[in-house]
C-alpha cells in the first residue's frame, strides 16, 4: 500500500496512462456533472460536491440488455456476461463506494446477479475524499465518513496544489503501477494534510441522526397515521429513488423490433403507483402513504434485518433533490419520537 502525489496539471497525464482500463469519471456535460466513460482526459472535472446521478449507474446501468432473441425460431442469443474490460471508477465519493458494498449484499444473495458481479469484479474503485460536505450530508451517522477508506481500492485527496493518492488494496497498487512516472512518492506532509482534511471534513458535517432503535421501531408503526402526514406532499415521482445510491429496484421488459428483440432491465421505483399494481387492478400500496412507509421501512428496517446494514449512506441527494422538501432526516426524527 503506497502513497503518492501528483500536481493538478498532471491529472491528465495520470488518466492518459490508464489506457488499459475503461475509465469512468465525473464529467460536466450539458450543465450536469455525471459519471461517464472518459474518452478525453481533459474533460474530467473534480470540482463538484457530488454528482446528481450516483455512480451506481456504472455497475447497474439504467437500461441494460439481459439477452437478445430472434422471433420465429428457438434462437436466443444469450448475451453472456463475458468478463468485461477492466474498469476504473475514478473520483467517486466514499459514500457512493459504501453504497456499492451495501447493495452487493443483495446482488450476491440468493441469486448472484452475473451482470453486476462481472462489473464489480472487473473494477478498480478510486475514491475522492470530501473536503466540503454538503449541507445535507449525514454519512457519519450511518457508519461512513468523508474520507472513509473502506470499500475503496485507492483514495484521492485534493490538497489544494497537489492530489494525494493512497492505495488501499492490491487492485489499487496495480492501477498505480500503470500510472508510472506521472506519480511521485508522497511524504509525511501530504499524509498529515490529508488526515487533517479528513478530520476537518467530519467536523463540517452538519446534520445527523441517531440510527439506533429506528429499525426496531418501524414495524410497530406500520398502521400508524404518521405516514399519511409524511407523504401528504409527496408527488410520487422517482427522484429520490433514482438518485439514491442504494436503491436498486428494477423492471424487466421485452422490446421487439420486427423479428429482433431483447429483454432489458431498467430502473424502477417503488414510489410510482404502478410499482405494485396487480394485473387484476388491485394495488396493495394504493396511496403515497403506503409507498413512503415502504421506502423508509425497506431502507431502515427490512434491509438491515436481512443483511445487517442500513441501506442508506447519508449522501443527502434525496433531501437535496426532492421538489417538495420531503426530508428523510425529518421523517426519521419523527419516527423515533412516535
Amino acid at each position: 500500500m503506497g502513497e503518492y502525489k501528483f500536481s493538478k496539471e498532471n491529472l491528465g497525464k495520470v488518466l492518459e496512462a490508464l489506457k488499459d482500463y475503461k475509465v469512468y469519471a465525473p464529467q460536466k456535460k450539458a450543465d450536469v456533472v455525471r459519471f461517464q466513460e472518459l474518452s478525453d482526459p481533459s474533460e474530467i472535472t473534480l470540482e463538484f460536491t457530488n454528482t446528481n446521478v450516483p455512480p451506481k449507474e456504472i455497475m447497474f446501468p439504467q437500461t441494460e440488455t439481459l439477452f437478445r432473441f430472434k422471433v420465429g425460431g428457438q434462437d436466443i442469443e444469450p448475451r453472456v456476461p463475458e468478463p468485461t474490460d477492466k474498469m476504473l471508477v475514478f473520483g467517486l465519493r466514499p459514500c457512493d463506494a459504501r453504497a456499492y458494498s451495501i447493495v452487493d449484499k443483495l446482488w450476491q444473495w440468493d441469486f448472484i446477479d452475473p451482470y453486476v458481479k462481472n462489473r464489480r469484479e472487473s473494477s478498480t474503485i478510486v475514491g475522492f475524499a470530501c473536503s466540503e460536505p454538503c449541507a445535507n450530508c449525514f454519512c457519519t451517522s450511518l457508519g461512513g465518513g468523508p474520507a472513509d477508506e473502506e470499500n475503496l481500492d485507492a483514495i484521492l485527496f485534493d490538497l489544494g496544489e497537489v492530489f494525494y493518492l493512497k492505495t488501499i488494496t492490491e487492485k489499487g497498487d496495480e492501477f498505480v503501477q500503470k500510472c508510472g512516472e506521472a506519480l511521485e512518492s508522497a511524504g509525511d506532509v501530504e499524509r498529515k494534510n490529508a488526515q487533517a482534511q479528513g478530520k476537518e471534513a467530519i467536523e463540517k458535517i452538519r446534520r445527523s441522526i441517531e440510527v439506533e432503535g429506528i429499525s426496531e421501531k418501524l414495524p410497530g408503526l406500520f398502521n400508524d397515521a404518521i405516514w399519511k402526514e409524511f407523504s401528504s406532499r409527496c408527488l410520487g415521482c422517482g427522484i429520490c429513488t433514482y438518485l439514491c445510491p442504494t436503491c436498486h429496484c428494477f423492471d424487466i421488459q421485452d422490446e421487439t423490433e420486427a423479428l429482433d428483440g431483447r429483454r432489458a432491465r431498467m430502473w424502477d421505483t417503488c414510489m410510482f403507483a404502478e410499482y405494485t399494481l396487480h394485473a387484476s387492478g388491485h394495488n396493495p400500496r394504493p396511496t403515497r402513504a403506503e409507498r413512503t412507509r415502504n421506502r423508509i421501512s425497506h431502507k431502515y428496517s427490512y434491509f438491515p434485518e436481512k443483511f445487517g446494514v442500513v441501506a442508506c449512506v447519508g449522501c443527502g441527494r434525496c433531501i437535496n433533490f426532492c421538489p417538495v422538501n420531503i426530508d428523510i432526516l425529518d421523517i426519521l426524527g419523527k419516527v423515533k419520537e412516535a
Partner: protein
Amino acid sequence: MSEEFEPRVVAFLCNWCSYAGADLAGTSRIHYLPNVRIIRVMCSGRVNPLFLVNALQQGADGVLISGCHPGDCHYLEGNYYARRRFVLMRKLLEHIGVEPERVNMSWVSASEGAKFAEVVEKTVEGVKAVGPMNQFRRRQINW
C-alpha cells in the same frame, strides 16, 4: 452508383373521403408514387397525433394525414378537430428539430383521385428534400 433515398411515408386516410379518393386514383389508373403506405381510419379526427410520433420513431420518414374537406366530414366535425391538432403537432415537432415537411395534411374528397396522386407526390418530394428521418428513430443502441 449511389442509391437515391426513397422515403417511407405513412398515410392516414379517412375512410369516407380520402381512402375512397385514393381508391379512385387506383381504379382510374392514375400513377402515384409507391413510397406511401396507407392506413385506413374512419375519420381524420380519429388520428391521434402521437401516432405520427410513433410512426417517425419506428422508421417512417414522413407522414400524411388526409381527410374530408372542412364542412364535408362524414361525422360532421372530426376533420375540424384534426385540423387543430395537426397544426399544433407540426409546430411542436418543428421546435424539436423535425423538419415541418415531414408532417403533411390534406383534404382529399372521394372524387379527387388526381388530387390524391398530386398530394402524394408533393409529400414525397418534400420528404425527399429533407432526407431520412434520423432524429429520434428507434435504433436499438446498446442492444
